[in-house]
């Protein structure tokens, strides 16, 4: 259940929630996460071999088409850098670690 605060005059965008997922699917293109992971995973494994020791636990963001990668310690900073270089690109992010998950939830 998503909790919304009601009655605030500055709560202008609330109606957006009423739009169905189907409508939204038309607006935004779906990104297949598994395909993206599959494309980036071999690059990550190679980077793990080459950089894993030196940059242990750093975050690597991979752009699968150019195979370019971006390294850093803050995911937002690295993603912003990647986005600047590839404004229309999509990226897969890993942690240079045996467990490549970036966040835990």
């Amino acid at each position, binding site marked *: 259940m998503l*909790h919304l605060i009601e009655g605030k005059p500055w709560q202008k965008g609330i109606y957006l929630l009423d739009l169905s997922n189907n409508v939204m699917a038309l*607006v935004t293109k779906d990104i297949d*996460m598994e395909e993206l*992971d599959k494309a980036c995973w071999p690059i990550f494994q190679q980077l793990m071999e080459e950089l894993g020791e030196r940059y242990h636990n750093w975050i690597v963001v991979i752009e699968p088409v150019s195979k370019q990668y971006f390294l850093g310690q803050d995911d*937002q900073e690295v*993603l912003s850098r990647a986005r600047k270089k590839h404004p229309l*690109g999509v990226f897969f992010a890993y942690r240079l670690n045996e467990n490549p*998950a970036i966040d*835990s939830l």
Partner: protein
Amino acid sequence: MANEETPLYLAKPKTIKGQIDEAGRVLLPVTLMASDGFELVVEAVINLEFTGAIVVPESLARSIGWRCLGARRVQIGSHIELLHHYIGLMSLGGTTQTVVALGSYRNVAEVGHKLLSGRRLTVDFATQEVIVQNSLASD
């Protein structure tokens, strides 16, 4: 909030008041800025196990026009899942910032460590009070 030298419109609130819901979850109001400028206020669950900034329902992230930048692996309990990541603008207690948000298929928003860093979180289950303060503001 503002002293005599600070105009009211420039004053940034340093205390955020949340609440505890019927299920005992600790909720905090966060403002999500849509790509067209709309400001949407949602109550997000504070998840102290979450190491990132914010999780928003996938449908919500799309509907407010946040840009999906791909995906990442996320450790959820004992297994790993793939989640989309978005870049968006949001505000917590008057401080507007760009954050990386994870898209979730659950219909709940969650805030994590990254948004709470540098702040003091007080949860009083006796009085049902939830307060987040900038560390400097409370001293």
